[in-house]
């Protein structure tokens, strides 16, 4: 009896979480444009989507920024983590506190303050400013993923490598990077998902006709619901779900074969 109640509650909550998304997806195949009626199945909205130059450009910027921001922030974050790791307690604490600001600050404050910065240095807002903003909010997450791995690492491993003749750079390449790899991968995944998902900070730091998908959806959604947006949303949601599914499978396999945790 208790179990039934539990299941009813959990499934109700899941219904609450997923119903709107499912309805939206179903509507994206609805031939009737207005009203809630079902006008038959169609792929028309998807066809229009792929013809729409604005959406193509938004998709291009979204992916481009996400890839660049992920690569740059993963590398920069990893290298910085090693640097930060080597500092004494006090300096480390200060650096980490500053690093933590973009994590705890509301996105809108981060966005607005960066917008002011770009105006202050008279930098025209567009692709570059948006990329800088994305890198700025991604690096902290990379550091927060990598640094704990560095701290968990057995210091004797570093000394052992040194003892066996490895120079500082070789130690990093051959031992440290291998040890902290799970942290780097987690950091990169964070960076990618955060970047591809971001709306608020992008909204304040872009310009010159550069929009990502989120900004595009927002500007359309403000005018009310539209079947094209339904179609676009469906694709975006499916992509993220698929991506998560792959990541999950990958890490499960890893856990099984080597016991390594991601």
């Amino acid at each position, binding site marked *: 009896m208790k179990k039934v109640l539990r299941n009813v509650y959990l499934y109700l909550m899941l219904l609450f979480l997923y119903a709107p998304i499912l309805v939206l997806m179903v509507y994206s195949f609805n031939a009737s444009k207005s009203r809630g009626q079902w006008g038959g199945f169609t792929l028309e909205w998807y066809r229009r989507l792929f013809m729409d130059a604005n959406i193509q450009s938004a998709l291009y910027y979204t992916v481009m920024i996400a890839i660049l921001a992920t690569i740059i922030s993963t590398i920069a974050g990893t290298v910085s983590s090693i640097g930060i790791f080597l500092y004494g307690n006090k300096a480390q604490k200060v650096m980490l506190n500053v690093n933590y600001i973009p994590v705890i600050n509301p996105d809108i404050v981060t966005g607005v303050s960066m917008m002011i910065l770009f105006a202050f240095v008279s930098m025209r807002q567009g692709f570059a400013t948006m990329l800088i903003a994305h890198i700025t909010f991604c690096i902290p997450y990379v550091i927060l993923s990598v640094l704990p791995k560095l701290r968990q690492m057995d210091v004797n*491993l570093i000394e*052992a*490598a*040194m*003892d*066996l*003749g*490895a120079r500082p750079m*070789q130690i990093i390449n051959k031992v440290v990077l*291998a040890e902290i790899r799970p942290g780097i991968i987690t950091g990169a995944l964070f960076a990618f998902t955060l970047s591809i998902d971001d709306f608020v900070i992008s909204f304040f730091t872009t310009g010159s006709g550069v929009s990502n998908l989120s900004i595009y959806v927002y500007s359309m959604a403000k005018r009310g619901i539209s079947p094209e947006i339904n179609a676009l949303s469906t694709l975006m949601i499916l992509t993220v779900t698929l991506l998560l599914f792959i990541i999950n499978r990958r890490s499960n396999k890893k856990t099984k074969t080597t016991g390594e945790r991601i």
Partner: protein
Amino acid sequence: MKKTIIEARNLYKEFGKNAVVKHINFTIAENEFVTFLGPSGCGKTTILRMIAGFEIPTSGQIFLYDKVINDIPAYLRPLNTVFQNYALFPHMDVFENIAFSMRIKKQEAKAIEAKVAELLEVVNLSGYEQRDIASLSGGQQQRVAIARALANDPKVLLLDEPLSALDLKMRKEMQIELKKIQREVKKTFIYVTHDQEEALTLSDKIIVLNHGEIQQSGTPIDIYNEPINTFVADFIGESNIIDGTMTKDFEVEFLGKRFLCVDKRPSLETDRVQVVIRPEDIEIGQCLEHTINGVVTSIVFKGVHYEIIVQCSESEYDFMIHTTDYHEINKHVGLDFGPDDIHIMKAG
């Protein structure tokens, strides 16, 4: 006389204001098995780490042959370390761990393979090449760590309490194994431990440390038989330490009786000394004129022998005696020992 390979001159190390190694001097000869022995916190690891190059001496020099190596970074020193927790690289298999230093030196694949095989043979792990580190037992990991440290043909192998993570049985086995390996590879081993029995079993030479100072150095037999002070005597094995006075050359008085001994009267301003008698050197017998007489207050079976406490009648001093004979509690007994069982040390 063997050639000196490592020498420390006036070696001093402090962390902040805390002096940990205090102006010590020692020499270590080629192919010697030398052990730094001392209680935890006395600075053993710090000395070893200075030799390895992980710690820079505050002052003083460390020589390798006749070259000062203070400023040579660890990766350029021809010395290798076996770490207490092994520090095997978890992301590499046994082969890659052992091959690490040779890969760093960019040696040929063939040569590396041959060397790894040879080393695995030395440590008795042939066929374990592809095994995951996590799948090995503590003892096996220990052997891999030794093989890895030997891969570079170091002039000296440094071992910091390498057996402390093993259980007793494994530890005994590895002691024998280690000695065997050392003879086989003919290298200098510098060993650190707080276990006096391990030190006595393994070493050619023992350097006893306390509070960052060398108390005594010498062969295990010297140190055991002729401890230079009460610290060494006590640390090396449980001992009876009694205050006494030298009455003349080869005669010492303690507990109200005079005994013959093998030491001369020291040319010091005072005749006060301390007398060390090992528990296993005392014989329990009848109360006689020349024996120290007392009462058995406790007897505990220790596996091989009994540990008996005899309280001396006159001074209430408790003697500890190791013997295979059984003596009842409250029995009146006499304690007997020969002149060479009496070790004289200056009073602490």
